[in-house]
């Protein structure tokens, strides 16, 4: 065994460089549009639209300032309210449901889970008109609350599924002890379960956050001025006067920044969430 390992290790040095180079190239290609977006945002308009493209330039924040001066904050706040609100609601509704589903006999749990997930498969456009008319009748048009409700619906199935898989990781002994102790359901949930699945909760919240923040279709149809969210701000930036690449890139960067940062800093949670807790 030792000879094979030694030989393997000798070759490893060379191939490590080779594979690393390839990996960095691939990552660069994928990351490039994001990088380009951020670079263009730091250029002036003439630099941004130049052919051949400007690679070396003095970065400037003027385009960002211009974008911010276009009354950006309300859109941002609306997005934040809709995203945080719906995520909270998903947790409040989803955690008890996930919990109940994790202690249920398999067959029934599977049916209910199937129902939940199937709603996520529904093409959104199908129920757009009735929802729109309902929202109109309930005075919920151009109201952030409508977005909260809709985003909760979109994220709830995934949230229940995720939370359930995290809950299944907790060992039985814990609950046995609590039950013998006579703990009621809520106590069980809040004092025992909640602290233990915090990473799982974080993962679920992150996934909900990503999908709610980036949501465009419902936002554009249900809001107009007061409750308009960041994607709509971005679309409104397509000026009829000309293609302003730098400003567009600045707006795009600002719009994507929160989710980019959240995803980057909470990568581990993101992966847990994406793999449905199947792998820790």
């Amino acid at each position, binding site marked *: 065994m030792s000879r094979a390992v030694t030989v393997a290790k000798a070759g490893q040095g060379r191939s490590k460089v080779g594979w690393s180079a390839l990996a960095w190239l691939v990552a660069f290609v994928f990351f490039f549009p994001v990088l380009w977006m951020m670079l263009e945002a730091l250029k002036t308009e003439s630099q941004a639209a130049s052919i051949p493209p400007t690679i070396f330039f003095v970065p400037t924040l003027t385009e960002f300032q211009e974008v911010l001066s276009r009354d950006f904050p309300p859109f941002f706040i609306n997005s934040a309210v809709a995203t945080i609100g719906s995520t909270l609601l998903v947790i409040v509704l989803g955690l008890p449901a996930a919990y109940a589903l994790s202690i249920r006999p398999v067959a029934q749990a599977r049916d209910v889970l199937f129902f939940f997930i199937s709603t996520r498969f529904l093409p959104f456009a199908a129920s757009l008109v009735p929802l729109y008319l309902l929202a109109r009748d309930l005075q919920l048009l151009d109201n952030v609350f409508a977005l909260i409700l809709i985003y909760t619906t979109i994220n709830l199935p995934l949230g229940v599924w995720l939370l359930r898989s995290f809950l299944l990781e907790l060992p039985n002994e814990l609950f046995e002890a609590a039950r013998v102790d006579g703990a009621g359901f809520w106590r069980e949930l809040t004092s025992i379960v909640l602290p233990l699945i915090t990473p799982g909760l974080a993962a679920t919240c992150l996934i909900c956050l990503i999908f709610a923040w980036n949501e465009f279709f419902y936002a554009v149809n249900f809001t107009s001025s007061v409750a308009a969210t960041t994607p709509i701000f971005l679309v409104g930036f397509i000026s009829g006067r000309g293609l302003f690449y730098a400003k*567009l890139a600045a707006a795009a960067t600002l719009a994507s920044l929160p989710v980019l940062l959240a995803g980057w800093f909470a990568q581990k949670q993101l992966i847990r969430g994406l793999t449905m807790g199947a*792998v820790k």
Partner: protein
Amino acid sequence: MPTPWARTTGSRLPATSTETTVRASPPAGGGGRTRSAASASAWDGRLRWLPLLPALIYVVLVTQVPFLLTIYYSLFNWNLLRPGNPEFAGAQNYLTVATDPSIRTALFNTVLLTVLAVGISVVLGVAIALLLNKEIFGKGVLRTLMIGPFLVMPVAGALIWKDTLLNPIFGLVGWLLSPIGLGRVDWVSQFPMATIVTIEVWRWTPFMMLIVLAGLQSQNLEVLEAAGVDGANALQTLRYITLPFIRPFVELGALLGSLFIVQTFDSIFMTTQGGPGEATTNLPFLLYLVAFQGFDIGKASAIGVIAVILTMIVATFALRTLFTIFHVEARR
């Protein structure tokens, strides 16, 4: 069994090598959480349903009620632009929809887009995950870079692709390809489906990669070493051990990815608006067009009902597979 919450990351080390596969089908029997006899009575019966109700009622209200309304509207001849009361039309909308070539085109485009985008991003995702799983410099940074496309707002990403990269006059791609004579190609108009697929693959490959990479990293290292000792080279290890091991993860990624890609709307809206012609009109976009450009509520509702029925059929198959992939069993 080590306590799960004490672990931070890292691979599981199952007791035997046969357990390298993720838990597959759930146990045949009931498998609910067992209870001590004393407290069993308190939890039997309807009390167990209670925590599930809020979420269930909520979802039913917000998804099923509008769907019922959609079915109701589909029975009327109702165009918002021609005011007056909607007249009852029975199944007429369905007949119109069934004979409308636009529906068939939209269905075809939906399937084509989904199959291509999911297929390509899965293959790329697996390849890149294998690459990132090797011994290389700066894995953490690489992973951070790779998930960028997935996190960027889809609307923003599509705009950057369309205006700064693929624009035939000012775009970067055009400039890069001008030495080989492809400088002035109008990618968005001449290759619309390819453009949309490219944008979606760009967005979802990181997603696939992350899932597969996580699976790769949970492999049992002892098994891999044992294979090396037995004389298997890298390619054989890959083919006979690694790939089968990550198969559940690949399936998970493919299913989840399909779920999202089938509903693609943002990139189509921002780049091709469904065209040219009907080349990139998929089902969601068609619904949007009929409902919010044509304002034909009746017809849009009929299309919606048909879309839902089709989706349900596909979803049934998809979800059955999903459920066998990983642990649906409850506590033992």
